[in-house]
């Protein structure tokens, strides 16, 4: 899962604004328990870089005074952290039972056909990737999908609403 080749990539520096956000998070925990800040910091870093490369995680480890492996083992455990580059917009469609009862599988097929890439792949323009994810706790409003890093939520999906969503995102990225 971990991209080892990136270990040779250029070292990363975090902006002062980002470091300030890190400091704020660390202040929520007792002194010496800064490791608790790891998950929230990884979210911030992923929002900044789009995914978590080894150099980025090494830098997080350095900031939190952890071994790099402590960051890698956490990042690879949780499903929200990307271990490889993604499209600018990642469409994450719920694929669990209740959403499937109301047509999630058809929506995933439609997205695959519409974007022309398989699950986990990135469109040639770098704008989109998509994947099925497990239950998003919105079972009454399925099919649903979310788009990070804000994790905006789209409910009661239809082919038409997926069309609108994708064209809106394309327009947004052109501006």
């Amino acid at each position: 899962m971990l991209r080892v080749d990136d270990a040779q990539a250029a070292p990363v520096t975090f902006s002062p604004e980002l470091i300030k956000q890190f400091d704020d998070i660390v202040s929520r925990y007792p002194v010496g328990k800064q490791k608790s800040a790891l998950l929230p910091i990884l979210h911030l870093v992923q929002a900044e870089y789009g995914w978590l490369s080894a150099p980025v995680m090494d830098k997080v480890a350095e900031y939190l005074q952890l071994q790099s492996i402590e960051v890698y083992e956490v990042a690879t455990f949780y499903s929200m952290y990307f271990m490889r580059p993604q499209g600018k917009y990642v469409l994450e469609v719920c694929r669990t039972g209740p959403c499937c009862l109301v047509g999630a599988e058809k929506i995933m097929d439609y997205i695959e056909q519409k974007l022309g890439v398989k699950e986990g792949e990135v469109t040639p323009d770098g704008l989109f990737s998509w994947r099925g994810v497990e239950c998003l706790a919105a079972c009454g409003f399925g099919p649903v999908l979310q788009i990070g890093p804000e994790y905006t939520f789209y409910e009661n999906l239809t082919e038409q609403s997926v069309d609108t969503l994708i064209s809106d995102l394309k327009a947004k990225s052109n501006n």
Partner: protein
Amino acid sequence: MARKLLLEHINVPGINTFDVYRQKGGYAAVEKALKTLTPEEIVEEVKKSGLRGRGGAGFPTGMKWSFLAKPEGVARYLVCNADESEPGTFKDRYLMTYIPHLLIEGMIVSSFALGAHASYIYVRGEMMPQIRILEKAIAEAKAKGFLGKNILGTGYDLELYVQPGGGAYICGEETALLESLEGKRGNPRIKPPFPAIAGLYGCPTVVNNVESIAAVVPIINEGGEEYAKVGVGRSTGTKLISAGGNVKKPGVYEIDLGLPVEEFLYSDEYCGGIANGKRLKAVVAGGSSVPILPANLFLKTINGDARLMSYESLADGGFVSGTMMGSGGFIAFDEDQCIVRNTWNFTRFYHHESCGQCSPCREGTGWMEKVLHRLEYGHGKMSDMDLLVDVSKKIEGNTICPLGDAAAWPVASAIRHFRDEFEWHVTNGAEAVKRNYGLAHYADPLPKPEAV
């Protein structure tokens, strides 16, 4: 219409803001608790209320609180479990989105009762919008003097923080949640020690579900005894039910425990019946982990009594003919749904979400997924059903945390109640990929049990 204890003001415009929530009587429980009650008295009220944990296990909240160790000079923590991920359940998302101050108010009262001065709300990472909502609500409450130092001049200090998860169902298990909150992989801990003795950072900790903590507010406002008058028997109070699947009106409903399931499913006040004029085939009553029941066994118990939405009635008949209240994730299946496909889907979920710590769960869930996949796609064997039951039995009870049981029960119950549909997938493999088995006899009236 029953009285709502949690969602009474849910439709009031602006109820998500401090000012409107306060106008509607919000934060009265904080004033009452901090100014007129001792922590012990609050714990006593919660005990009297009979409130049972709303996250799924149904353990009495007051009792859980009374187990909290109180060694001198050691910090105590309250952690709210908002890692709502049980398929079928979306009540906590609803509550946090529309009436976030109810949770904040409950957290303040509960933290005071437990002697915590820093409390955390662990929200699943995917719920970033809800995290932003809660952080705003906390800032509002703090600006009004309900959080921070010397709350309402009572000398009580409390800081409340929101912690995002990283996307892992297992973190809904309380010890995995604590590991995750400590910045580690969400591997459940071996118990004992229980969190009440050694939880967050090794300190005494209580972990409660969002809805349990919210329920503390009406309990303090009205008194534990009043709260206990709602409901039936040991199922006291109201419960949020997330209704999904093929019902006409999906959504979150607050019900008095003890409501007949038939009324919940078919009355216009609640689900409004099955969508598109179809008939009910099966129900998962409490989230994907609880046993699935065919329509006939769900609506009436094996003895022919009307089933109620209560912990006891849903569990009537044990796992032979009953199910569980769980987290209140109510999933209805119409006549067009395939039980084999759904069981495969749920098993894929558990395989994906197994933390990998215990081999029966790590290997067993994957094995069951594979077997169910071949059954669904018409390549199954008659011996597969017994194989699935065998694997599920070897997972159940042999793992550190209940995820193993949660993965085993849906499979075992689906085969118990829908065996002929599984067999049809073997005998009619080519047909099974093209069409579903249909309603079959699953809604037919049950034969009367023989007199003993």
